[in-house]
């Protein structure tokens, strides 16, 4: 089944969730993206991206315990599903075939 390609923000969010593993939730994902790319993502945009990943079955949410620091609210954690991993690879593949031969350095930081 063909699904819509991932957006820029969805790629970043998916990768961040994969990196963080069981620690992936709103604040940590924002920080991960921020520290690695320098991009400051608004909480609204992030949840919108995560919702779309969730709808397509790329990530699965799970609800944690209420935490006092959060005003007694629970965290919503995310885990990447195998389909999510495939989708991320497909996105990278698409990107790689587009930039192949342009002489761009993948390792450049």
């Amino acid at each position, binding site marked *: 089944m063909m699904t819509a390609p991932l957006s820029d923000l969805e790629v970043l969010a998916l990768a961040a969730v994969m990196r963080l593993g069981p620690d992936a939730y709103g604040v940590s994902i924002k920080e991960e993206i921020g520290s690695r790319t320098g991009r400051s993502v*608004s909480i*609204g945009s992030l949840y919108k991206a995560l919702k779309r990943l969730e709808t397509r079955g790329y990530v699965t949410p799970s609800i944690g315990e209420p935490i006092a620091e959060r005003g007694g609210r629970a965290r919503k954690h995310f885990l990447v599903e195998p389909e999510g991993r495939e989708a991320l690879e497909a996105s990278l593949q698409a990107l790689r075939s587009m930039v192949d031969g342009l002489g761009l350095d993948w390792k450049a930081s």
Partner: protein
Amino acid sequence: MTRPPRLARRLLELLLPSDEREYVLGDLDEEFHTRARVSPRRAAWWYRGEVVRSAWPLATYPGRGGFTMVGFVQDLRGALRVFRRAPGFAAVVVLTLGIGVGGAASVYSVVRGVVLSPLPLGEPDRVVMLWGQSAQYPRAPLTVGDHNALATDVAAFESVAAAWSNNALILGEAEAEQVSVGWVTPDYFDVVGVAAGIGRLFEPLELNTVVISHGLWVRRYGASPDVIGRTIDLSGQPFEVIGVLPADRDPNLTTFAGGQATHQVWRLQPPDWTQGDDRSVGWLRSTARLRDDVTLVQAQAEVDALMTRVNETVTDRDGGADMWVRLIPVKNDLVGGVSRTLWILLAAVVGVLLIAASNVANLVLARGEARSSEVAVRTALGGSRLRLVRQLVVESGVLALVGGVLGVVLAWIAVPVLLSMAPATLPRLDLVRLDWGVFAFALLATAGASIVFAVVPAVRTTRTDLSRSLGERGATGAPSRQRLSQSLVVAEVALSLALVTSTGLLLRSVASLNDVDLGFDKDGVVTFALEAPGWGATNDEAAATMTAYLDRIREVPGVEAAGFTNRVPLAGGLFTGDFRSEEMVAADVEPSSASFRYVSPDYLAALGARLVAGRHFRIDDGLDRVILDESAARRAWPGEDATGRQIEIRGIGTDPMMAEVIGVVAPMKHHGVAEPASETVFLPILAAANQQNFRYMAFRVAGDPAPYVEAIREATRRVSADAVIARVQTMRELFDEDVAATRFASMLLMIFGGIAVVLAAVGLHGVMTFSVRRRAREIGIRVVLGADHGGILLNSVRAGAVLVLAGIAIGTLLSLGLGRVIESILFGVEPGDAATLGLSATLMMVVGLVGAYLPARLVLTVDPAVTLREE
């Protein structure tokens, strides 16, 4: 512990989809607290920033049908369904709003055209009129001496010019035509910033050339460029046309009387007219252009300093020795008198718009209450509050839009009607039109009204308590919502009362103006200026010509009396001199200033002046005979009979003469219905027939004088074929013009006040109806328990009466404040007039009680069996 900013948090809650609310708020709280440990202030700003940046993504959150086109169309359909399902509601909302917006847009179009649009001059802000001002005369034309002092000694002025006007006849070619001629000094067009459209303007000393207006050029000369260089006959003298003014510039400024001059032909004043320091006659309409680096205040200060020096040396001047000069920007001068009235009317109509908007807000609130179970069900089923608010806002928006469109249509109908009713003295009415500025205003008015009636109830309605709406049926409804409705009604009643009181004050003013004793009879009299070439060089010849005109006019069947004068009452112009009694001369008492009026024997009788003592003039009376008005007679001989006594009179710049008082007439209002009658000395015009600049006539008939004008015109032509009667006006018309602004304002306010009262009553009726409906169950139970209908009815009416009384209390304070604002356009009534206020409050009370009683009667129809079964 620091908390996230409340308003941002509230907004975010509204925006968040319910299933993510907890986690997003939690995430933000967590991060906020981390940041707040470093700096609470910056953390708060970070929080607000997050909310703002999240607003759009959250509004378009997947699966919630946010601000998408599809969702919008759905809402739109929902809104249109309102029209089908509740056509009465929709119709009342649209009509109420339409009336409010239409009224506001109409009045604004007049304000925009008359007050706001710039004068068609070059840099009109730098051009000022220079009017004399003394204790007796608030607005006097300048004398040559004062004009020259200002022209030479004021550094703040770039240039100074003067104008004067008379009428002339264009003869030859087509039919003789009467035109108003502006006689100007050479700098005039530079001062007003107008260049020639075609041809050129005057060189100094060009006395036999004229410049014509664009209108005259098109009308009489077919817009032919050949007119330049052509010679035209102006009252028997040849003039070369050297230029035509452009269509988009009009150098006509204000006249003595306050209206705009209508010169169509312009010519230079002979230079000797404005030379020297003569101060015997004030006749110049002086105008100056300010230097670019000077403010009006600075210029005024310089002029004041100059006039202080001048007044020290001046002993004798038309209008008084103590004369000051006021600088008035040309536009203020032209529209200053009416702009206050127009702003007051605009404020009144915006008040009506506010009342309309509150009414609609009440309707929406009441309807929201009726729909509260729908809202509750939808909220319970997961409908987000945002979605609901949005739907309500779109619904109200559609209603507002339709109301606004209706308003523009109403304005489109109303503006021509308004213009046809507007007094002719209202300047610049030709600039009033429905243009984009007015549409923008209507849009703004609609938007403002919508905020009052759409957003507030929408937020209120959706804050419905689920358990209450779905569970136990609310017995009294949400108290806060009811309080809002009630406040709106109180505000409506207060605003309406203020409008009604102001209307009452203006109606009393109109009545006072109508009852003013003018000192003459305003009915059955026609006045006109007689313009004719060749009156005769000597006094005998001029007197014979005058007598010939009088004889011909008296031959017209139906004419009872006719006479000449140099100034007609209420038509503007000033002509003064000094007088004192023989005894005062002996005692060396200072003479006092008076209006001087030259009149022919029958003139005062034609006007209907009341002779109090003595007799009128006869043909053979010389300048040694005068008639006084009662106030002048009282000043000369307090408490004594003036007839047969000797008086010293002195025209400005002439030697004193002794004269015998042969008669006394009742005081006459020369300068305005609302102005005090000035002390007057009447002199025989036939004894000074060749000295007159202006010759006016008045004739009296029984009944309506208008049909006689043609016969009078014929009669004057039998004396001279080129005689023209100009400025034909009945005394009634002059009177009507004088009081027109007050009448116009009171009539419009009466309409606005009427609408306001009706709207307030409708609003009260709505709120009461609704409250009775909601209490049906409670009432049912009470009736079952044996309460009597009458007691419950009384209770309901009392609840309404409390609202009305509160409104009246606030409205009374508002009325007193408003009375001060409109004080300047009142006449013969105090701004805080208790009778008017009491009457208005009573009216409001009666209307309010009817509005409360009718719906309260619904309680009588409550059938407990039916009501309770509904549960």
